[in-house]
């Protein structure tokens, strides 16, 4: 589980996100909100990519502020609009992520195969379309043995078949390995392939459980 304690994010003097207290239990969690509501900011904070005030605890054991390494090991993140160095191939990125996250290269290669981008595995990402880069970033989010995978708008820019394939991968990872997911969407999410255990709403610069 993830426990938020007095989490606050400000830009200059403007508060963009303020969560006094929140407990997100493990499961398949949907995070909804309008454009600019702060969903990406929240995910980036949990992934350790943005500075913030307050604290976030993993299983009441590891604090993002005090035991950062242990905390980050439990969290993987896929950006909504991923950017990678253009000269790197998918193979090099997979190796890099698997080395950093102590993951299995073969496993990620299998995911890329399921997402139909394995044939460009040895080509630089500069030759990829935005959808292919998105699929690659989603596969990379599965590197290693995280407890939570944060997926920021995972279903934008990718084709219908790939959406089904990703849902299948998410379900399998959740049921087989007990990995929890926090998935954002700015639209009303209606996907029969995923059965969310909880739904959160980012509204008025705070996060609450949707009714």
């Amino acid at each position: 589980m993830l426990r938020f304690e007095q989490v606050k994010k400000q830009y200059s003097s403007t508060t963009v996100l303020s969560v006094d207290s929140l407990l997100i239990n493990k499961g398949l969690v949907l995070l909804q909100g309008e454009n600019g509501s702060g969903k990406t900011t929240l995910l980036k904070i949990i992934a350790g990519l943005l500075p913030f005030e307050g604290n976030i605890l993993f299983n009441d054991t590891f604090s993002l502020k005090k035991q950062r390494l242990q905390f980050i090991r439990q969290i993987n993140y896929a950006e909504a609009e991923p950017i990678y160095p253009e000269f790197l191939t998918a193979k090099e990125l997979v190796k890099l992520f698997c080395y950093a996250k102590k993951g299995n290269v073969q496993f990620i290669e299998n995911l890329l195969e399921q997402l139909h981008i394995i044939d460009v595995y040895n080509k630089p990402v500069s030759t990829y379309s935005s959808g292919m880069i998105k699929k690659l970033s989603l596969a990379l989010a599965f590197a290693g043995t995280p407890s939570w995978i944060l997926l920021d708008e995972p279903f934008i820019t990718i084709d219908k078949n790939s959406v089904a394939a990703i849902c299948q991968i998410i379900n399998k990872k959740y049921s087989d390995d007990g990995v929890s997911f926090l998935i954002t969407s700015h639209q009303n999410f209606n996907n029969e392939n995923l059965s969310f255990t909880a739904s959160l709403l980012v509204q008025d610069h705070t996060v609450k459980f949707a009714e």
Partner: protein
Amino acid sequence: MRTTLIILQKVLVNHFYRLNAGLFMFLFYVLFGLPQNAGDFHIAIATIIVKSQLFLLLVFAAWLLYNFKCIDYICKHLKGPAQLFLTSLENFGFFKCYISFAFVQFMVYLPITAYSIFLVIVALKNHAYIAAAEIIACVAVMILSVPLLYRMVLQRRWSEINIGLPAFIRFPKPLFLLPVFYLLKKRKQMLLVTKFFSLGILWLFIKGFNPDHYDIRPTLFCFLLAAIANCTIVFETRNFEEEYLSISGNFPLSLTRRFINILLMYAVLLMPEMIFLWKGYPVYFNLFDYLQLAFVSIAMLCLLHVCLLIENTTMETFIKIVFGVGMGLFFIILYNPGIALALFLFIIAFAIFHAYYYDFEK
């Protein structure tokens, strides 16, 4: 036509000089600030150049490198989405379009043109008429041929200078080396020009300075000057990290490990200077002092790198920091601090890194 030229001046030329202000300031300092009598020094250098075909060729090579830098910048900028409106220049027809880009090329090439006029005057005074003609021809070719390339870029028929290793040669790419690969792939002209100048400083020092007794301080200062010439590389590296490697913040790496990555990266980037310096062994340094030279220069670049983690460090502020660090080190070196200087710089750099890394946000 005048309006077009004003727009091109604002969009392409002014931005080029703003972007390279650091390099020009550094060059100005090296060329006019360091020599005691700059006027006589430059006339002497120019006389040597116009009287020797070999030196003249070297100068042409340097001008060509600068031209590559200009071409690289203009082409990249022309391809940017914000400059898409410039495709309307095509409607002017070939001649007007060519003249417009010739103006751009003339303006970005102006520093070389100005120096070439100086060289031509010196050549004529020394009756080196062939050298004068060669200089004029060289500059004319560089200014008049390149607008054709820019026009091709505008028409999307040509993209950029591409000098690279064949695709089948692949090196492993660990995280710490990614900025180096980025520079090699995407900023090769800048890298080439920077290394040309930093190695040039070392070459001039080794050729021109003959010590009557062993003293590491002049060598250390000169080597640091060569390392400081890499400051634009430091800036580019930080930008690259921020733009393309931000996701690495989610990698479970300790701060110490991340800092070591920066050290390793600058050790690799300074490899050409470190290898070239061996030309001066054993007159200018002994083995122990070589370690001092290497560590101090790496530590200094690390310090400059981490200064960019401090909030709102623009290129302008960064140049001030570079000058401040350079001046500070000059006075410290006078007291011959030995290897303690490297340790001191590493500690300061790590302290800044530790304080700002997780709090940095663009």
